[in-house]
């Protein structure tokens, strides 16, 4: 069928619009996205908004049970051992929590993935060195690392992120490498090589998209792990220190009251769970939305079901 050169490619609907439509199609993911948005907003405004309310102690109102409006709306989730309203504290803690968790997860995921790509795609020698390094990190106790960093560098949020991130690098590294070893043998990667694509283009444009969904799955669950592990480092003095708070720290502090005042650790724990759950639902959604062979699952929603 001959064609005149004036025929051009039809304009696609904007990528954002399509993503939005696909998000709308998956109500779970939509709810998750809204929750994550809420968390981000709270992380930005929380401390300025409720700092005062969250730190005001009230020894007479200590361990106040939840679901009572006696202390105002901030008191609906109850109060902690110093009588501070839990809702306000959870909101204020959002910023620290998210900063640390996102920092640590991003840092470890990015570095781990990079190294994994290099180890999987580049030469043997580099790969071997990187992998043995990962072995070393994997067997280096994180607590020892924390103690060392604390002693040598002193406590700070940045150091905390570093400690948390380093220990998680090997998962990303090994996961990435394992998949790269398989993907690099695929024909379309070779086709890219024939076109003269640089290593980096092959790695980022052709291999990474295949590996990414798995990494996202691991990363979102690491979020929970990091949020909880971070409080363990507070115990060493390297982490966030009271009166500063994070969800992890609140959970840890509430531990001793688990049987007498469950709400102290359950609400922040729930915040962690919901955040993780949301991120994971989102990453599951993203996996499908970004995969052209799976995308119909979202595009079909609401129209027809086979």
């Amino acid at each position, binding site marked *: 069928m001959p064609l005149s050169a004036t025929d051009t490619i039809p304009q696609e609907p904007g990528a954002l619009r399509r993503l939005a439509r696909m998000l709308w199609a998956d109500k779970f993911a939509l709810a998750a996205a809204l929750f994550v948005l809420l968390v981000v907003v709270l992380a930005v405004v929380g401390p300025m908004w409720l700092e005062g309310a969250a730190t005001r102690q009230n020894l007479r109102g200590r361990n106040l049970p939840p679901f009572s409006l006696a202390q105002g709306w901030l008191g609906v989730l109850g109060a902690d051992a110093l009588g501070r309203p839990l809702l306000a504290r959870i909101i204020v803690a959002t910023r620290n929590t998210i900063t640390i968790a996102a920092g640590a997860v991003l840092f470890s995921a990015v570095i781990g993935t990079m190294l994994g790509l290099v180890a999987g795609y580049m030469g043997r020698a580099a790969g071997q060195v990187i992998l043995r390094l990962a072995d070393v990190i994997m067997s280096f106790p994180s607590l020892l690392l924390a103690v060392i960093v604390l002693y040598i560098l002193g406590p700070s949020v940045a150091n905390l992120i570093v400690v948390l991130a380093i220990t998680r690098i090997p998962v990303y590294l090994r996961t990435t490498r394992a998949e790269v070893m398989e993907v690099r043998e695929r024909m379309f990667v070779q086709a890219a090589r024939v076109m003269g694509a640089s290593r980096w283009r092959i790695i980022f444009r052709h291999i990474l998209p295949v590996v990414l969904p798995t990494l996202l799955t691991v990363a979102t669950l690491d979020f929970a792990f990091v949020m909880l592990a971070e409080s363990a480092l507070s115990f060493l003095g390297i982490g966030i220190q009271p009166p500063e708070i994070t969800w992890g720290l609140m959970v840890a502090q509430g531990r001793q009251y688990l049987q007498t005042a469950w709400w102290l650790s359950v609400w922040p724990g729930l915040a962690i769970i919901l955040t993780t759950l949301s991120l994971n639902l989102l990453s599951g959604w993203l*996996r499908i939305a970004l995969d052209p062979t*799976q995308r119909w699952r979202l595009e079909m929603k609401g129209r027809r079901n086979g």
Partner: protein
Amino acid sequence: MFGFIRQRAIASLISLLGLVVLVFFLSRLTGDPAALFLPIDATDEMRRQFREIHGLNDPLAVQFWHYLGDLARLDFGDSLRRARPAIEIVLEAFAWTFQLAVITMAIVTAAAIAVGALAAFRVGGLFDRIASVTSLVGASAPDFWIAILGIVLFSVTLGWLPTSGTGTPLHWILPIGVLFIRPFGLIVQVVRGSMITALSSAYVKTARAKGVRSGPIIFVHALRNAMLPVITVIGDQAAALLNGAVVVETIFGFPGIGKLMIDSILQRDFNVMLAAIMVTALAIFLMNLLIDLAYALLDPRIRH
């Protein structure tokens, strides 16, 4: 294959040495064990003596030289606190941890693969939703919640299981149950994700065209293709268990390596710390080697 393993063994030995150097020197920057072992009001004389006895007064390089010499004779030194050979303490504890890790990972692997694969079979279905949400909630819940809840429910209220300790097989149920949850959640997710892709491949269509049942299609045809990331994550989780399950060990009074490692780090019991790290490192190195071999076994296109 044997060439690969030999080369790998040499590389691992070098990393192990590197690890020892790292831990040896870095850990000694973290304070004086004498201050922790001796009472707070111990005299300077006592402190000096303690260091003398344990060879902590020598220059670091000399200390390290001695340590390496001893190590060559498989002498890992004595615990600074316990007046026992460090390796003995470590191996005792490691035996427990090893059993716990192996049993837990075996159960986790089987369960997570089954659940994850079935969830991927009907993406967005009821089973998928329930399995995903429950496994994720479990995986992101603080583990001590589950541990304490388990004790309150199964031991105190129902009286079915002992609260803690070791001895009977019953003692293992709660610790394994708690350890199960996080790796389970993570692996279910990884299996599910990777299976979604595998199940939509062309070769799955071939299998359907051949009249193969759903079971083998999922667990034989697709699963093996989906296993690369899965075994990597299994390895990561197993490594975490081999490093010791601190919460479970402390709550259930399980005499494993995690608590030992933490104590030795906090108390600066260097010899125990080093021995523990070496033993677990060896286990982890070995496990990673097995995993790398498994890659090639699972996917013939991967050759080392």
